[in-house]
């Protein structure tokens, strides 16, 4: 090879090398840019499979998001579902999927292409360490379509041991294994059979973000009677210098039902960590607690009462009462026996009820009222229907109740007080049946079996009263008006009297009214006597005299005529009026006391008209008004 050829080759190889380097770098950059993304391979029927793993390295219990996306082109047709590996074998628990589906349509070269994409999102929660391949495929017409690349999940950390351990002696953890862990609290590691044990699951977290906790799998409580208790509020504790929030997520009262080693299963809780306040995307973490074993002691045999029930463990008291102590023979009464205290109140055995001589007792109605505070307790009430069958003084005997008190580790017995009953005789009461205790009585049997009812009365016709037509509401309204009328009338009368006193006529007015009435009477009398003349001039004289005295005022009373006329002049009455008045009075006197044979009715009418004109005239009237 010549030097020129070598240089030509070198010149010819140089661009090729650059291209190869460029292609290689581009491939590397692409591979780096999509490290966890398996590029879907084109498959038959236009199907593409894409798998995304959120992270490839997680701790035990830390959830990782696993998304499978299947895209299919074509018109219609169902998108096949993915087939997953056996996660159980890998110790990975699966949550989900959450599915979503989208469709898009494109127009290319006059052809319509439709694309359907279905996403399946899972949470993978590993429970043991290791490296796990997560292959996925879908089947299309019997052929497997695989993802071009198989994601691998590496799990680090240690798995929670399976074997059960004894409960911790301490009330709180001495060290923190991680920023999120479960702490199981048992208040008595070796209780007696039937004794109340409080079991609580507490979640310690120092994540510093809002968490959403759910008990994924509650522990198993074989051989325990359990009662749920209220959880306590979240508190804060400092462990190893780190501040933890402690969430009590589960509390139960456990009552061991047998002696020996009893197991409490492992609890699992899922904790969703809120990633961002404004983007509430959660990261899921699962925490597992340990299984526990309790050493349950049998109840002591010494001092155990005969027929003792192992459910009667705790601290109890008993009371009895009746709704009435004085009853008639055959009349039912209610006896209530109440057992209250702390312990398995739902399962206690009250023991055998004492016999009630002279009485019949029916099966009790049982009511339980539990309270769930720190510990389980409450009241258990037995309500008996008791019917005295004998008259006289009867007694409800005391009832004894035995229980084992774990605090004192002794058997205790409490009892009710005897209750005395006074039963009065009732001739209508049924005869004693000697039944003692009865199960399900009918009301007839309970109240007396005989036919005690008075028979119907059977005359030929039923006496009746007519239908009342009165509407009670209307009748009541009328009565109400009548009642309200009394104070109204009182008020009206009193008010009327007050008004009369305030605005009614005074003495002068009454006197003036009397004078006017007298004047009207005299005028009427004179008018009536015009034709006959009987008493005519007397009436006219009185009419004129009265008008003159009234005009003259108080001084005019009792004055002779001449002085009266003089007084009228002093009062300002015109002379012609006084003269006319004097003349008329004189004429009246002459007619009354002298011979008046020549008087005609026309003359008397003229006198009457003149007198009335004088009396009603302004000169005398002004005086009357003043008077």
């Amino acid at each position, binding site marked *: 090879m010549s030097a020129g050829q070598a240089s030509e080759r070198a010149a010819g190889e140089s661009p090729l090398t650059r291209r190869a380097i460029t292609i290689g770098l581009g491939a590397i950059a692409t591979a780096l840019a999509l490290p966890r993304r398996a590029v879907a391979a084109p498959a038959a029927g236009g199907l593409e499979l894409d798998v995304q793993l959120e992270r490839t390295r997680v701790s035990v219990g830390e959830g990782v998001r696993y998304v499978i996306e299947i895209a299919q082109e074509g018109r219609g047709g169902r998108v096949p579902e993915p087939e997953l590996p056996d996660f159980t074998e890998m110790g990975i628990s699966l949550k989900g999927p959450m599915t979503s589906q989208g469709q898009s349509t494109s127009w290319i070269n006059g052809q319509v292409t439709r694309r359907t994409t279905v996403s399946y999102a899972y949470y993978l929660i590993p429970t043991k360490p290791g490296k796990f391949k997560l292959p996925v495929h879908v089947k299309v017409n019997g052929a497997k379509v695989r993802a071009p690349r198989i994601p691998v999940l590496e799990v680090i950390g240690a798995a929670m041991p399976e074997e059960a351990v004894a409960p911790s002696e301490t009330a709180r953890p001495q060290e923190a294994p991680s920023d999120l862990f479960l702490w199981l609290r048992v208040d008595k590691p070796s209780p007696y059979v039937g004794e109340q044990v409080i079991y609580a699951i507490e979640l310690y977290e120092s994540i510093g973000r809002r968490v959403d906790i759910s008990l994924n799998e509650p522990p198993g409580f074989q051989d325990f009677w359990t009662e749920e208790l209220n959880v306590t509020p979240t508190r804060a504790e400092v462990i190893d210098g780190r501040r933890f929030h402690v969430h009590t997520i589960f509390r139960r009262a456990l009552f061991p039902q047998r002696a020996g080693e009893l197991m409490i299963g492992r609890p699992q809780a899922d904790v969703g960590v809120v990633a961002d306040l404004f983007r509430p995307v959660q990261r899921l973490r699962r925490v597992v607690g340990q299984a526990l074993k309790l050493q349950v002691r049998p109840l002591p045999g010494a001092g155990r009462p005969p027929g003792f029930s192992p459910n009667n463990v705790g601290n109890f008291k008993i009371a009895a009462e009746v709704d009435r102590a004085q009853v008639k023979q055959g009349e039912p009464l209610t006896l209530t026996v109440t057992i209250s205290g702390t312990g398995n109140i739902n399962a206690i055995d009250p023991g055998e009820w004492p016999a009630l001589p002279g009485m019949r007792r029916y099966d009790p109605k049982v009511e339980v009222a539990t309270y769930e505070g720190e510990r389980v307790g409450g009241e258990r009430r037995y309500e008996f229907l008791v019917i005295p069958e004998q008259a006289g003084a009867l007694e409800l005997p005391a009832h004894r109740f035995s229980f084992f008190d774990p605090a004192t580790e002794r058997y205790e017995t409490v009892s009710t007080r005897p209750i005395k009953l006074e039963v009065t005789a009732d001739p209508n009461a049924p005869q004693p049946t000697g039944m003692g205790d009865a199960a399900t009585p009918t009301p*007839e049997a309970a109240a007396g079996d005989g036919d005690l009812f008075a028979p119907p009365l059977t005359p*030929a016709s039923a006496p009746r009263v*007519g239908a009342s037509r009165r509407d*009670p509401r209307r009748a009541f309204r009328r009565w109400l008006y009548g009642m309200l009328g009394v104070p109204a009338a009182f008020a009206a*009368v009193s008010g009327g009297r007050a008004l009369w006193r305030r605005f009614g006529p005074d003495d002068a007015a009454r006197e003036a009214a009397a004078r006017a009435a007298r004047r009207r009477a005299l005028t009427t009398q004179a008018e009536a006597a015009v034709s006959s003349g009987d008493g005519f001039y007397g009436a006219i004289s009185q009419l004129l005299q009265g008008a003159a005295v009234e005009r003259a005022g108080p001084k005019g009373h009792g004055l002779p005529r001449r002085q009266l006329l003089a007084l009228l002049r002093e009062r300002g009455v015109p002379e012609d009026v006084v003269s006319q008045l004097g003349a008329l009075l004189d004429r009246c006197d002459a007619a009354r006391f002298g011979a008046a044979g020549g008087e005609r009715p026309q003359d008397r009418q003229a006198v009457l008209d003149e007198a009335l004109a004088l009396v009603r005239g302004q000169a005398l009237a002004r005086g009357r008004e003043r008077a």
Partner: protein
Amino acid sequence: MSGDRRPLASRRLGLGLGLGLGLGLLCLCPSARADVVDDAFARGNAAVAAGQWDEAATQYEQAEALLPGRSALLSYNLGTAYAQLGDYGRATFHLRRALQSDARPSADVIDAAQRNLGIVQRRAEVAATQAGARLGQPDTGWGPVLAAARGRAVGWLALALGWLALALWSTARWRQRRGGSEPERGGASVVGSLVVVLLALYGILGAVHGLSVRAEQNTPPAIVLDAQVAVRDAPGAHRKQIFTVQGGSQVRIVDQTRDWCQIRLSDGLEGWVPEIALGQLSGVGARRVRGRTRAPDAPAS
């Protein structure tokens, strides 16, 4: 002339015939109705004699439906028939109606009805205890006093006392105005004291009567008819049941919708029951009682 008289006579004749027919019908109707009532009553009595209490109750129900007024005896017989059938709700209702003064019961009816009512109440109490149902008791304590105060006589007495006081006072004032003598003035002070006493009685009796009648009208008493009735927290069969009330319980109706009544028991518990399950003892709806349409031992509604 005679031609004018004929139409007048025929008109009078027609008027007379019409009046006679009307009066005859008026006289005949009540007796016919009474016969129907008596017939049903007699059939009920015959059923009683034969021991057929179901038939007796049916016949007595018919008689009561036909009766325009009240019959204490009929109510007593009906209540006793229901008691014998074990239908303590309707038995209580009719026996209580038999004891109401409006029905004017005789002494025999009062004695027998009180006796049967006592037995029915005792049995209802036992049934309530067994079923865990609430039993509304009749009014106790002040109840009888208020019942007596509701009497018409008390109302009239209060009214008369008030007007009498007004009349005495007005007379005394009138005499005083006339200016009475010394003995008359002494009498006026006695009259004044009497007026005060009368007014006090008027106020007390009137207030007690008015309030008790008002309470009776606003919350009329009723009897639960069915054996056990579910009491709900609101009107509607779908609403939550809060307790059960025993048939024969006396309750008060405190509110009412179209088909439901809100009741109050003697211990203050309240709830809603169907209107059809109640028999109202007084007021406008006192006669609106559903007859027995099913066996007395039918399950609770």
